[in-house]
């Protein structure tokens, strides 16, 4: 059975590298599904490119749902674009499989959240970092919802742990003047830096901070590391050696002979495969609604909570060492808590005795 599947990723713009990683994960998954004799479906990509322009997402999403038989779309990188397409999904009876980590506080009936939310990235990352580096954090981010909200949660977690926010600064999207950021970090001497900058701002910042670490060892990765919830392998080419020592949290990192080139590629691959496995199990995959698909019992693929539509995921803490991620900590099957309202879904802080850094 032939089933059209919408693909909505930007191939240019400030987050192009993430977008391309997601897109290649989706296309590779489609190929794998079509080659899998156990799956009696053939996925056909219906692709639109919003070119990094947030105003193009809604109309292009409508175009896919109106002009093709696709009911499901894999796409969007930024929260802003995701929020733009939700009303369109409602109007045209479509659904979005969203493959990127985000800041939480959403549970749309029309969206499957296939990557991590804060209890699967930020909370484990900070609870892991506090005992190792300290609780005095410098928070930075790009001026939009991801940076603001992730840093707000971080402020609360730092306060809860009895720590202190050494400083907090935002840069406009695409801005690469990081000198003030570096000056403030030099002056406030934090224990760690939480980096929620995206694209070129982030690349420039990491390069400048690496230079600062060479000049003054108090800012080297083993004493004051940069932590991130969304920096992955797909941005290594832009970062070069500036990625070295950075610590990230996510559901997947490429280590050794792992099959996917990057975390985002893996997440999107999993999302498409999960969708395909479920489509193969329903009577009429061409018209099945998202809730029908999430209800059907199926083996394999991601576990999606039918209440929140969020995936249950492993949580990995990994550090860039010698140009590749090395996993330092791992929790399995962490159920998403998008509104941070379930204390029992917080991961327990791991023991520190084996890897004391400071």
């Amino acid at each position, binding site marked *: 059975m032939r089933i059209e599947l919408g693909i909505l990723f930007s191939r240019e713009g400030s987050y192009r590298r993430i977008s391309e990683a997601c897109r290649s994960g989706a296309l590779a998954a489609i190929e794998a599904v079509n080659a899998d004799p156990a799956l009696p479906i053939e996925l056909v990509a219906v692709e639109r490119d919003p070119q990094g322009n947030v105003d193009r997402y809604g109309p292009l999403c409508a175009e896919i749902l109106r002009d093709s038989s696709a009911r499901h779309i894999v796409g969007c990188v930024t929260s802003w674009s995701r929020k733009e397409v*939700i009303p369109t999904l409602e109007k045209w009876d479509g659904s979005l499989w969203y493959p990127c980590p985000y800041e939480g506080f959403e549970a749309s009936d029309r969206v499957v959240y296939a990557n991590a939310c804060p209890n699967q990235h930020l909370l484990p990352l900070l609870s892991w970092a506090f005992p190792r580096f300290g609780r005095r954090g410098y928070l930075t981010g790009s001026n939009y919802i991801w940076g603001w909200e992730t840093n707000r949660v971080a402020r*609360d977690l730092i306060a809860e742990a009895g720590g202190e926010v050494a400083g907090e600064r935002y840069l406009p999207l695409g801005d690469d003047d990081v000198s003030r950021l570096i000056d403030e970090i030099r002056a406030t001497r934090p224990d760690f830096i939480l980096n929620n900058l995206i694209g070129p701002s982030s690349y420039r910042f990491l390069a400048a901070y690496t230079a600062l670490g060479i000049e003054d060892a108090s800012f080297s990765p083993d004493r004051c590391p940069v932590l991130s919830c969304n920096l992955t392998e797909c941005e290594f080419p832009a970062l070069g050696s500036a990625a070295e020592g950075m610590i990230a949290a996510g559901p997947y990192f490429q280590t050794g002979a792992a099959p996917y080139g990057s975390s985002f590629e893996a997440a999107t691959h999993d999302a498409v495969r999960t969708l395909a496995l479920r489509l193969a199990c329903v009577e009429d995959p061409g018209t099945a609604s998202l809730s029908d698909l999430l209800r059907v019992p199926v083996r394999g693929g991601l576990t999606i909570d039918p209440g929140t539509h969020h995936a249950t995921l492993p949580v990995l803490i990994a550090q860039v060492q010698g140009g590749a991620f090395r996993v330092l900590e791992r929790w399995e099957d962490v159920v998403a808590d*998008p509104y941070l309202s*379930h204390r029992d879904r917080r991961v327990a802080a791991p023991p520190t005795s084996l890897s004391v850094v400071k």
Partner: protein
Amino acid sequence: MNKRLRIPDLGGARAMILHRPHATVEALTRQLRAIGLATSDHWPELPAAALGADYVFFDTDMGHDGQFPWKPGEAPMPMIALIGSEAPGRIEWALRQGADAQLLKPVGDNGVFSALLIARQAFESRRASGDEIAGLRQRLAERQTIVRAVTLLAARGKTEEEAFAQLRQLAMAWRETIEQAAARVVARHATEGGRDDRRELP
């Protein structure tokens, strides 16, 4: 009132919905459960158990005073109005019930989380202002007592200013408010009979 938003504990909180069976109730329930609340829906009346709920969502289109186990405006928890018709009379009724936030019907895919936060904040600040006003009213009522105490102390050959300073020192020494100290001075004077300075009293 420029305080930072305190996010209430929503995991396991109880929300009651007063609305006839309807798609709006389903959409509301889905959102509330995704956030982590326990829900129940009721029609045509809220049971007495509603007194223990953490949030109440109520229909304004078909609602009336008799549906609640409390008097209008005296709900002991944040109330969120579910508004269909925006007729002023219905809005007025919703406000009289003490609506702290509202959601427009039909309820879709979002809006509940912000309604919960806004209603909680509005409810808490309304309650805090109510307590503060009650306290101020009481102190205002006690102003008469302070005037009498100062007059009594002044009758012993002090100026009014000196008498007031003395009253303040007494309050400090007794570790109580100036109103409480004044009440004590007046009471003592009454039991001691006031001797000859009694004629100085107004």
